[in-house]
Protein backbone atom coordinates (compact mmCIF):
# COMPACT_ATOMS: atom_id res chain seq x y z
CA UNK A 1 0.00 0.00 0.00
CA UNK A 2 2.81 2.38 0.93
CA UNK A 3 4.39 1.69 -2.49
CA UNK A 4 1.12 2.52 -4.26
CA UNK A 5 0.79 5.78 -2.30
CA UNK A 6 4.39 6.74 -3.08
CA UNK A 7 3.90 5.92 -6.78
CA UNK A 8 0.67 7.92 -7.13
CA UNK A 9 2.15 10.74 -5.03
CA UNK A 10 5.16 10.92 -7.31
CA UNK A 11 2.90 10.91 -10.37
CA UNK A 12 0.86 13.79 -8.93
CA UNK A 13 4.03 15.82 -8.28
CA UNK A 14 5.27 15.15 -11.82
CA UNK A 15 1.93 16.14 -13.39
CA UNK A 16 1.86 19.29 -11.19
CA UNK A 17 5.38 20.15 -12.39
CA UNK A 18 4.33 19.60 -16.03
CA UNK A 19 1.32 21.87 -15.49
CA UNK A 20 3.57 24.56 -13.98
CA UNK A 21 6.07 24.14 -16.80
CA UNK A 22 3.36 24.71 -19.41
CA UNK A 23 1.31 27.31 -17.54
CA UNK A 24 4.05 29.85 -16.77
CA UNK A 25 5.54 30.06 -20.30
CA UNK A 26 2.02 30.28 -21.79
CA UNK A 27 1.19 33.07 -19.34
CA UNK A 28 4.34 34.90 -20.39
CA UNK A 29 3.68 34.38 -24.10
CA UNK A 30 0.08 35.57 -23.82
CA UNK A 31 1.22 38.73 -22.05
CA UNK A 32 4.36 39.55 -24.03
CA UNK A 33 4.21 37.38 -27.17
CA UNK A 34 2.05 39.71 -29.23
CA UNK A 35 -0.08 36.79 -30.45
CA UNK A 36 -3.38 37.22 -32.29
CA UNK A 37 -6.65 36.15 -30.60
CA UNK A 38 -6.88 32.77 -32.36
CA UNK A 39 -3.32 31.79 -31.42
CA UNK A 40 -3.90 33.00 -27.86
CA UNK A 41 -6.98 30.80 -27.49
CA UNK A 42 -5.16 27.79 -28.94
CA UNK A 43 -2.17 28.37 -26.67
CA UNK A 44 -4.45 28.67 -23.63
CA UNK A 45 -5.68 25.13 -24.23
CA UNK A 46 -2.23 23.65 -23.44
CA UNK A 47 -2.14 24.46 -19.67
CA UNK A 48 -5.84 23.58 -19.40
CA UNK A 49 -5.07 20.06 -20.64
CA UNK A 50 -2.05 19.66 -18.37
CA UNK A 51 -4.12 20.96 -15.41
CA UNK A 52 -6.87 18.41 -16.10
CA UNK A 53 -4.24 15.66 -16.17
CA UNK A 54 -2.84 16.97 -12.86
CA UNK A 55 -6.28 17.08 -11.20
CA UNK A 56 -7.10 13.58 -12.50
CA UNK A 57 -3.84 12.31 -11.02
CA UNK A 58 -4.54 14.15 -7.72
CA UNK A 59 -8.02 12.65 -7.40
CA UNK A 60 -6.65 9.19 -8.23
CA UNK A 61 -4.03 9.66 -5.51
CA UNK A 62 -6.79 10.46 -3.00
CA UNK A 63 -8.27 7.02 -3.59
CA UNK A 64 -4.95 5.34 -2.75
CA UNK A 65 -4.54 7.16 0.58
CA UNK A 66 -5.55 5.68 3.92
CA UNK A 67 -8.54 7.00 5.88
CA UNK A 68 -6.62 9.51 7.98
CA UNK A 69 -4.83 11.05 5.01
CA UNK A 70 -8.09 11.18 3.05
CA UNK A 71 -9.67 13.05 5.98
CA UNK A 72 -6.75 15.49 6.05
CA UNK A 73 -7.14 16.17 2.32
CA UNK A 74 -10.92 16.53 2.71
CA UNK A 75 -10.59 19.03 5.56
CA UNK A 76 -7.84 20.91 3.69
CA UNK A 77 -10.19 21.36 0.73
CA UNK A 78 -13.11 22.37 2.98
CA UNK A 79 -10.97 24.98 4.79
CA UNK A 80 -9.51 26.32 1.54
CA UNK A 81 -12.98 26.51 -0.05
CA UNK A 82 -14.31 28.44 2.95
CA UNK A 83 -11.35 30.84 2.83
CA UNK A 84 -11.79 31.28 -0.94
CA UNK A 85 -15.47 32.11 -0.46
CA UNK A 86 -14.56 34.57 2.28
CA UNK A 87 -12.03 36.26 0.01
CA UNK A 88 -14.54 36.44 -2.84
CA UNK A 89 -17.12 37.98 -0.51
CA UNK A 90 -14.65 40.59 0.74
CA UNK A 91 -13.56 41.40 -2.83
CA UNK A 92 -17.19 41.68 -3.91
CA UNK A 93 -17.92 44.14 -1.09
CA UNK A 94 -14.77 46.16 -1.84
CA UNK A 95 -15.62 46.17 -5.55
CA UNK A 96 -19.13 47.44 -4.91
CA UNK A 97 -17.71 50.12 -2.61
CA UNK A 98 -15.17 51.06 -5.33
CA UNK A 99 -12.19 50.24 -3.10
CA UNK A 100 -10.75 47.30 -5.05
CA UNK A 101 -7.25 47.50 -6.51
CA UNK A 102 -6.79 45.12 -9.44
CA UNK A 103 -3.03 45.41 -8.99
CA UNK A 104 -3.30 42.90 -6.14
CA UNK A 105 -6.57 41.10 -6.79
CA UNK A 106 -6.54 40.24 -10.51
CA UNK A 107 -7.31 36.67 -11.63
CA UNK A 108 -3.62 35.70 -11.59
CA UNK A 109 -3.36 36.76 -7.94
CA UNK A 110 -6.58 34.98 -6.98
CA UNK A 111 -5.09 31.75 -8.31
CA UNK A 112 -2.11 32.15 -6.00
CA UNK A 113 -4.32 33.01 -3.03
CA UNK A 114 -6.45 29.88 -3.63
CA UNK A 115 -3.36 27.68 -3.78
CA UNK A 116 -2.13 29.30 -0.57
CA UNK A 117 -5.50 28.60 1.07
CA UNK A 118 -5.16 24.90 0.23
CA UNK A 119 -1.79 24.76 1.97
CA UNK A 120 -3.20 26.64 4.98
CA UNK A 121 -6.04 24.11 5.15
CA UNK A 122 -3.63 21.21 4.73
CA UNK A 123 -1.42 22.52 7.55
CA UNK A 124 -4.38 22.97 9.92
CA UNK A 125 -5.84 19.54 9.14
CA UNK A 126 -2.46 17.84 9.45
CA UNK A 127 -1.88 19.43 12.84
CA UNK A 128 -5.25 18.09 13.95
CA UNK A 129 -4.65 14.45 13.00
CA UNK A 130 -0.89 14.00 12.67
CA UNK A 131 0.96 16.19 15.12
Amino acid at each position, binding site marked *: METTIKKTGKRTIITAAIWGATYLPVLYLLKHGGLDKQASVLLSVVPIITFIIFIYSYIKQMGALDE*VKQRIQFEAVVISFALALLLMMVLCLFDVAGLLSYDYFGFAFLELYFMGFYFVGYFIAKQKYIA
Partner: protein
Amino acid sequence: MKNTIKVERAKKNWTQADLATHIGISRQAVNSIETGKFVPSTVLALRMATAFECTVEMLFQLEDNN
Protein backbone atom coordinates in the same frame (compact mmCIF):
# COMPACT_ATOMS: atom_id res chain seq x y z
CA MET B 1 -14.03 6.91 22.15
CA LYS B 2 -11.20 5.13 23.92
CA ASN B 3 -9.23 2.20 22.62
CA THR B 4 -6.85 -0.52 23.76
CA ILE B 5 -4.70 -0.62 20.65
CA LYS B 6 -1.52 0.13 22.58
CA VAL B 7 -2.22 -2.73 25.01
CA GLU B 8 -2.99 -5.16 22.20
CA ARG B 9 0.14 -4.08 20.36
CA ALA B 10 2.22 -4.66 23.47
CA LYS B 11 0.74 -8.17 23.82
CA LYS B 12 1.88 -8.98 20.30
CA ASN B 13 5.11 -7.03 20.69
CA TRP B 14 4.27 -4.98 17.59
CA THR B 15 5.39 -1.47 16.82
CA GLN B 16 2.99 1.01 15.22
CA ALA B 17 4.75 0.34 11.92
CA ASP B 18 4.16 -3.43 12.31
CA LEU B 19 0.46 -2.88 12.90
CA ALA B 20 0.32 -0.45 9.98
CA THR B 21 1.81 -3.12 7.70
CA HIS B 22 -0.66 -5.74 8.93
CA ILE B 23 -3.76 -3.64 8.27
CA GLY B 24 -2.50 -1.72 5.23
CA ILE B 25 -2.43 1.87 6.48
CA SER B 26 0.37 4.34 7.25
CA ARG B 27 2.17 4.47 10.61
CA GLN B 28 0.95 8.03 11.11
CA ALA B 29 -2.62 6.80 10.66
CA VAL B 30 -2.08 4.12 13.34
CA ASN B 31 -0.70 6.78 15.68
CA SER B 32 -3.65 9.06 14.96
CA ILE B 33 -6.15 6.27 15.75
CA GLU B 34 -4.24 5.04 18.81
CA THR B 35 -4.12 8.52 20.34
CA GLY B 36 -7.86 8.98 19.71
CA LYS B 37 -7.47 11.82 17.21
CA PHE B 38 -9.20 9.84 14.50
CA VAL B 39 -12.07 7.35 14.75
CA PRO B 40 -11.60 4.60 12.15
CA SER B 41 -14.29 3.24 9.84
CA THR B 42 -16.02 -0.05 10.61
CA VAL B 43 -13.94 -1.83 7.98
CA LEU B 44 -10.65 -0.61 9.45
CA ALA B 45 -11.79 -1.40 13.02
CA LEU B 46 -12.67 -4.93 11.89
CA ARG B 47 -9.30 -5.28 10.14
CA MET B 48 -7.57 -4.22 13.37
CA ALA B 49 -9.62 -6.67 15.42
CA THR B 50 -8.73 -9.46 12.99
CA ALA B 51 -5.04 -8.57 13.21
CA PHE B 52 -5.18 -8.68 17.02
CA GLU B 53 -7.43 -11.74 17.03
CA CYS B 54 -10.00 -10.04 19.26
CA THR B 55 -13.38 -8.33 18.87
CA VAL B 56 -13.96 -4.71 17.87
CA GLU B 57 -15.64 -4.14 21.24
CA MET B 58 -12.44 -5.18 22.98
CA LEU B 59 -10.46 -2.66 20.93
CA PHE B 60 -12.86 0.30 21.01
CA GLN B 61 -15.14 1.40 23.83
CA LEU B 62 -17.53 4.32 24.07
CA GLU B 63 -16.86 6.91 26.75
CA ASP B 64 -19.53 8.59 28.86
CA ASN B 65 -19.58 11.68 26.62
CA ASN B 66 -20.08 9.64 23.39
